[in-house]
């Protein structure tokens, strides 16, 4: 198990900050930006952020009390 991941939830490294400003707003500020459908863009951003958060959580070390609980199981049980 990985033990080095700090408890604090961090953004996965190397990922650019994700903007949730609707694409229409971005287009107002930078007309050169492409304008895909708003829903699709927002949806993709939310999906990426959600998965990144979840992966970070799943990488945290399993608490000892849960390991102890499972350790009591016989190897062959089930």
């Amino acid at each position, binding site marked *: 198990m990985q033990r080095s991941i700090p*408890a604090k939830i961090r953004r996965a490294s190397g990922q650019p900050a994700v903007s949730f*400003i609707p694409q229409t707003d971005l287009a107002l500020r930078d007309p050169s930006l492409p304008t895909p459908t708003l829903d699709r863009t927002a*949806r993709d951003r*939310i999906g990426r952020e*959600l998965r990144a*958060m979840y992966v970070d959580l*799943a990488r945290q070390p399993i608490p000892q009390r849960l390991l102890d609980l499972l350790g009591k199981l016989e190897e062959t049980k089930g």
Partner: protein
Amino acid sequence: MKPAFNMREALLGAVPSLRAFGISLTGDVDRADDLVQDTLLRALANIDRFERGTNLNAWLFTILRNLFHSEYRKRRREVEDPDGSYAARLTVHPEQGSRLDFEDFRTALAKLPPDQREALLLIGASGFSYEEAAQICECAVGTIKSRVNRARSRLAQLLAVEDVEDLGPDSMTRAALQAI
């Protein structure tokens, strides 16, 4: 003879995902670990009822979700807390840069109704199909789809507002963006 299926290993393998689901659902690591522990205990007590070869993860998520909801209902009865303390807990650590972690996202997630939050987590992060999520939540596939859609729309709204606030001291820009 080596067992064909090692339940201990299988449960251990499911724990990281169960914890991620529990933490995202409750916003509270300790409470999530209590839920995961109770889930494992209940799974072990009912191991005979698990059909080998079926989806162990879906079975475990169903147990955890049921525990969460019975606890949620109990808490609602015991303490008048209509807004839940979830959001309050998640807004701690203001000293941390909002772009360095998931506070924005988790705070927004916390504002969703639990049924929308769990549907989004199951579909968008836990990797379940709509059919599996419907089974876990004991509702129709269409209900899951609708909850996920509403969750995404609400999150987009919440996060767009927060980003506008992040733009800084240019109140003209901020006002202009908010007016759109």
